[in-house]
């Protein structure tokens, strides 16, 4: 019973936080358009669209740009709360609809990359940490440093160069073969082929980060007294690693994973651009080229919400791992 209440309270706190972040970002978006050089209607219409008089008039009416700022802000926040993110100036469609179409692709990409990085990264980190000082560990350290220094977009391009241009194993871009007649399983496998390189290039940096962290964490945990206790109890190596070290070592990794979620989602914008992956990042890039402000601001808001959901997931994981967090006594 107490557990349920604690989780309820934690969720409540998260919802408060989510609403606060949404309101702050909505306010920031509002301020950004007003702070931009030029007339807000002009900014919203975008430079590439030119000054279509009718569009400008529409925008002024829609956003009430002749009203005082306070009224404009209140109206703006009111819309956001009702999930009205405005209309794309280029495609003339509600921003929310555009986002809804693109959301699954982005979620698929970021969640895959995140899970891959976390699982593979911590596994490698554990192995390196247990073999600290060996040749394999040194090789691992060098590799992770190199991965960590790699620009995401360039890593993506290099994967394309190797696996698509030279080896011709994987499709260079896209989101599934168009017009392919495939069963559900075939479709999934087909999508997987398209997902492989984007997920790998997005996840690589984080894989390196988590692996290095896990390695350091394992080395640190190995020196703790309770590991000595476990040895003094007569446990064998596997029992000690699995039963005592792993969970303790995971604590800092999960903390950092939560903090890195924002960067991971940001990286998706670049990766989607490289691989023509039809997600929110690609939508941002297209909107950027046309200076389609309502879309850019809407995507920024939604991506922030996604980051908070990632945070929530890692926070819950943290609570599961560490009983001290559950008791809230930290």
């Amino acid at each position, binding site marked *: 019973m107490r557990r349920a209440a604690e989780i309820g309270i934690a969720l409540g*706190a998260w919802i408060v936080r989510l609403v606060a972040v949404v309101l702050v970002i909505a306010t920031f978006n509002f301020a950004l358009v007003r702070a931009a050089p030029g007339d807000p209607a002009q900014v919203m219409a975008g430079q590439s669209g030119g000054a279509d008089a009718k569009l400008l008039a529409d925008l002024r009416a829609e956003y009430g740009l002749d009203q005082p700022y306070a009224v404009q802000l209140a109206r703006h926040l009111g819309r956001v709360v009702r999930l009205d993110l405005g209309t794309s100036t280029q495609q003339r469609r509600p921003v929310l609809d555009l986002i809804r179409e693109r959301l699954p692709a982005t979620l698929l990409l970021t969640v895959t990359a995140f899970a891959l990085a976390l699982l593979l990264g911590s596994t490698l980190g554990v192995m390196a940490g247990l073999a600290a000082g060996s040749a394999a560990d040194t090789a691992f350290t060098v590799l992770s440093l190199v991965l960590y220094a790699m620009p995401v977009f360039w890593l993506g391009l290099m994967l394309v160069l190797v696996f698509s241009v030279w080896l011709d194993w994987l499709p260079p871009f896209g989101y599934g073969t168009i017009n392919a007649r495939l069963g559900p399983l075939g479709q999934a496998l087909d999508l997987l082929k398209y997902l492989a390189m984007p997920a790998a290039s997005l996840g690589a940096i984080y894989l390196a980060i988590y692996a290095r962290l896990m390695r350091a964490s394992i080395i640190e945990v190995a020196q703790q*007294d*309770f590991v000595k206790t476990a040895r003094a*109890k*007569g446990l064998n190596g596997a029992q000690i690693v699995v039963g005592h070290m792993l969970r303790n070592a995971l604590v800092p990794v999960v903390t950092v994973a939560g903090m890195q979620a924002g960067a991971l989602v940001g990286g998706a914008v670049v990766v989607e651009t490289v691989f023509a992956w039809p997600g929110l990042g690609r939508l941002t890039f297209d909107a950027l080229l046309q200076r389609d402000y309502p879309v850019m601001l809407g995507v920024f808001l939604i991506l922030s919400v996604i980051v908070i959901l990632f945070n929530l997931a890692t926070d819950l994981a943290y609570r599961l791992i560490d009983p001290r967090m559950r008791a809230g006594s930290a």
Partner: protein
Amino acid sequence: MTDAKAPVSTAPVLAVDGLTIALPRGGDRAYAVEDVSFAIQRNEVVCLVGESGSGKSMIAHAILSLLPSGVRVAGGAVAVNGRDTARLSGPDLRAFRGGEAGMIFQEPLSSLNPLKRVGAQIAETIRTHQGGLPRDEMRARVEGLLAQVGLPTPGLLARSYPFELSGGQRQRVMIAIAMANRPALLVADEPTTALDVTTQAQILRLIDDLRRERGMGVLLITHDFGVVADVADRVVVLRGGRVVETGSAEAVLRRPRDPYTQALIDAVPRARLRPPAPRPEGAPVLSVEDLRKTFTVRRGLFQPPRRVVAADGLSLALHQGETLAVVGESGSGKSTLGRMIMRLTEPDGGAIRLGGEDLRSLQGEALRRARRGLQIVFQDPFASLDPRQKVGDAVARGPMAYGTPRREAMAAARTLLERVGLTAAAAERYPHEFSGGQRQRICIARALVLQPQVLIADEAVSALDVSVQAQVLALLAELRREMRLAMIFITHDLRIAAEIADRVIVLQKGRIVEEGATRDVFSAPREAYTRALLDAIPGRRFFEHPGFTREPVAPEVA
């Protein structure tokens, strides 16, 4: 399961023969211990005594093959029940660890896995050595062990996490783990050093009871001759990795042959109760009235904050040349009291008067001026000096802050450094070049160069080895007489309090339980809590034995 099943062997439970342990190359010495031999019989407690760096802990770890990587046994043998443990490996070694020999460590919190329930950690030991048991039977075994180590409500405790237990309870859990498979040998590495004095007494009694019940051999590592006097059958004294003396506890304590042993025993602070100095006349230098402080620890968003009362109406008066000891266990608020007097922690209410001026009403520059009369020496000699500041600067900073020209201040610093037993050249060196005891001398010089009226020593000798402790205490006593200092000596160690103080205040949970002249409080305590504290002093019976006399010696101790 019963002792009858074990064959009665004549071999000692533990035989350490010519043990030499090599340290990794490049360290400050080649061997942690050299040529150490001793034995433990059934139903016997052997204490391995030594100061830090004596290698005592290494021996304990070597017995269970738990030496840190890079450290190895370079010679000699360790036999348990006649079996050479150095030859054990793989499954045999694991069956031996936790089976034939159990071990407990100094820090009970870090010795338990923080993320695992206590019951599961005990059950794991049983399962490893005796195989799986039906759920109910395992639960009964675990709860039985928890009850045996004197824990109340074993059922509830088994489901708790280590962070939910007190220090003493955690150490009892560690003992339960070590006892789970009825070992023939228990190795205890400073098991009570991290605990309060009353808890220490309970844990030592528990170990002794279990030893008697089961006829175990116990190897107890300690730095405290008081503990030796209370529980040891035999003693092995180590110095710098070599055995300097071994024998029955009685013989070693009463007739130590080696000068080092004698010096260690002499250094044990004891209540040399002097007649109380006549209470000085006149107004007190420092008076504290009705000081109050409650710490509020905020917990989660919707949980009520936890309140800890650190000071619940504390009052005291201190006269020139007088030493007042403030004693109490952890959480009694003794350190907070010192910090509040220094205005490092802001009290919630009350008054602190130094020479008639209420420090609490002062702010900014006025407070800074007033602080000159009050100085403090902290517990940790490693944390209390800025690693980037030369020792001379650290001492001279004080007078300079009050306007003394640099040259004069440096000269004063050098004089004082010499007075506390260092050389004037020490002024040009950095803190990391000094040992713990030397650093504490520097801190004393730093405090006294300002010629304060009141010196607060907050556990100032607790982090030091006994022999160093005795020297620093002697220095403080000298300086106090010389400078007519009033001193507040905050300590958890009643022996030290009795040795240095004219008057004592006993604190418990932020309240003064008892107050009076040291001799009165120690010889005729009025309160049950004070009595409990006094009874728990390790070695009290021995060291205060009326017939206990020794020739005074002047040994050379580094």
